[in-house]
């Protein structure tokens, strides 16, 4: 592990309160998910359907994006394309500038986190206020989301109460959830009224109809996309599906896998700006489609499965590593299993390849993923990409995680294992000199006993039992 990642892991593991808090939160999410999928066969059938829908969309991705864009133009939505996050930020800024926007409200969007949009705009003097309650809290705290669905998951009620008290000293202290929520409602309603623009993410794009679909519980997404005169949506190029009929099954998989809800409070389908005669809705709607490494992920037949993701967070909720570390220790925009396959591909293996290594490959993520992304298999694949030397892979930074000492050790092992005589001698000497093995093996033995080598090799023990080579 690199210094930075190592340090954040050690720090997270030392935080007992955080670990207890996460364990409780994850247990309840796991239980809720189970409760809304009472029928195992139906769940598996729906997962296969979800996988086919997303797989179908990816198999025609360029055509669908073009079809989607054409529909959008008919509907009056302006579509912009950005290869990098820098470019996406500039596009958003230019739209805001030409509309003379000083203040904007934001609905939850992980792609905007990927872009670092808030910082970018605030440096340019535009006020960006997060309006999702969880995002609002972490923005107040000056933090980043620790979960892709529940951004303030890491914060306890008391921490939030203290934060509110510190930031809004005029409002009496309370750690009552309803009162805290009412405080946020009051502040944000004022902001919705004043905002010149709203920025949101998107959950699905429908190529057939040119529709933007947003999933949410609070109503802040609807506020941000309806009250201000300008709406800008930002999303990844992989979010498109072919037909409207593809949306109901995906929506059902998404909300049930994410929070165990049969459906969220609002499902918001946006076709275009305010039409003549209509009394509300934005006058202009823009959509920024971001690549940021996705087209490179697309190029690899196996790794392409990464792009099926519908960002439900179920893999995160079921991950034993995430549950012990929390999201911040990963140091990336997307934490947990999905982050560990997505981030190394996006940012390059030399920088983030170690995320694919920080996994026990227990398989829980792959089992719950509603679109059946074989996450453990992809983690393994990325480990290999990190050390392969043939230079033919698509992933950036391939081969850059190869360590001289490790490859030497494996070479030694492979030459030993392919020479029977040498192998036997080695095994025998290991047994004979087993007492010479040190009792302290670095961090491993801080909490465990060192492994003991048996007196006799397995082969001999088996022979004594009367088994032969066959």
């Amino acid at each position, binding site marked *: 592990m690199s210094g930075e990642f190592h340090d954040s892991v050690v720090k997270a593991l030392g935080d007992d309160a955080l670990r207890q808090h996460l364990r409780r939160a994850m247990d309840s999410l796991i239980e809720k998910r189970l409760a809304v999928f009472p029928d195992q066969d139906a769940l598996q059938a729906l997962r296969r359907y979800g996988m086919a829908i997303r797989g179908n969309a990816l198999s025609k991705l360029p055509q669908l994006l073009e079809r989607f864009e054409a529909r959008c133009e008919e509907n009056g939505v302006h579509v912009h394309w950005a290869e990098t996050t820098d470019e996406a930020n500039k596009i958003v800024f230019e739209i805001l500038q030409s509309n003379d926007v000083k203040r904007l409200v934001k609905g939850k969007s992980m792609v905007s986190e990927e872009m670092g949009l808030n910082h970018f705009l605030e440096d340019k003097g535009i006020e960006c206020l997060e309006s999702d309650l969880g995002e609002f809290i972490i923005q107040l705290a000056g933090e980043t989301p620790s979960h892709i669905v529940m951004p303030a998951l890491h914060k306890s009620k008391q921490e939030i109460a203290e934060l509110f008290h510190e930031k809004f000293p005029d409002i009496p202290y309370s750690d009552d959830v309803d009162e805290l929520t009412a405080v946020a409602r009051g502040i944000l309603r004022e902001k919705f009224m004043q905002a010149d623009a709203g920025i949101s993410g998107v959950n699905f794009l429908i190529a057939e109809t040119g529709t933007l679909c947003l999933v949410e519980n609070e109503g802040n997404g609807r506020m941000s996309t309806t*009250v201000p005169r300008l709406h800008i949506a930002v999303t990844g190029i992989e979010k498109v599906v072919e037909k409207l009929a593809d949306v109901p099954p995906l929506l059902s998989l998404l909300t049930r896998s994410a929070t165990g809800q049969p459906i969220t409070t609002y499902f918001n389908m946006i076709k275009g700006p305010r039409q003549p005669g209509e009394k509300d809705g934005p006058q202009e709607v823009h959509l920024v489609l971001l690549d940021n490494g996705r087209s490179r992920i697309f190029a690899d037949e196996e790794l392409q499965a990464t792009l099926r993701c519908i960002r439900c967070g179920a893999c995160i909720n079921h991950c034993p590593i995430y549950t012990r570390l929390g999201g911040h220790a990963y140091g990336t925009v997307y934490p947990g299993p999905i982050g560990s396959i997505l981030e190394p591909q996006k940012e390059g293996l030399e920088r983030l390849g170690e995320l694919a290594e920080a996994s026990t490959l227990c398989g829980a993520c792959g089992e719950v993923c509603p679109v059946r992304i074989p996450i453990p298999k992809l983690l393994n694949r990325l480990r290999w990409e990190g050390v392969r030397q043939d230079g033919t892979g698509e992933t950036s930074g391939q081969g850059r995680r190869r360590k001289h000492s490790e490859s030497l050790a494996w070479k030694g092992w492979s030459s030993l294992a392919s020479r029977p005589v040498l192998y036997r001698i080695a095994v025998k000497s290991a047994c004979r000199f087993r007492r010479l093995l040190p009792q302290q093996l670095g961090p491993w033995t801080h909490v465990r006993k060192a492994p003991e080598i048996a007196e006799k090799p397995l082969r001999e023990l088996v022979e004594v039992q009367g088994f032969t080579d066959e």
Partner: protein
Amino acid sequence: MNESRQKILDRLRTVSREEGGWLQRRVDKRAWSEEEKVQRFAECMSAVRAEVYRTSEVSWVKDLQRILKSKGAHNLLYAPVKPHGKLLLEDFSSSGIELLPYDLEVERWKRRLFEEMDASITGCRGAIAETGSLILWPDEEEPRLLSLIPPIHCVLLPAEQIYSTFSEAVDIQGWVEGMPTNALLISGPSKSADIAQVLAYGVHGPKSLVVLIIP
């Protein structure tokens, strides 16, 4: 900008894969009777603290007045040109609840909309029994914010317009043929569990959702 579009699409196009003709789409629906659908809908709605009342063509206006009074509402935002709006106009004068038409563009009375409205009423385009969801297609008469800004949102729902699933509603109502600028599924009052996973209602949207089912 156009250059980026070209580059992204070119990169995607260099990967030639077999196109997924293998996707078998299906309309997922249940063989529920109207009564079963009403019941399932009401159960789901109640589970998220929406209030569901079974009323009738003749008594809904009175029922609505009673409900609004019990909630202490002083005014009701509505769409005067809709048939239900006309009925309200005939019968609301004695109730002491002021009827306010949503007949101006939002920019012209934003602050009033946000600060003075207690309740609103809209129709809907049906509902979904499986998940307890109302289908709203806001239009010129019933704008989008009618169902979002006032703390109490009331909805009239004809029982025969409840579909078993979302998939069935999309199919039978022929959504592909023409959707409005904004289509919505609403499944309860606004809520959040962002503070320590404790559920709180009325975050940004309505604090209560009242559904009046008319047989």
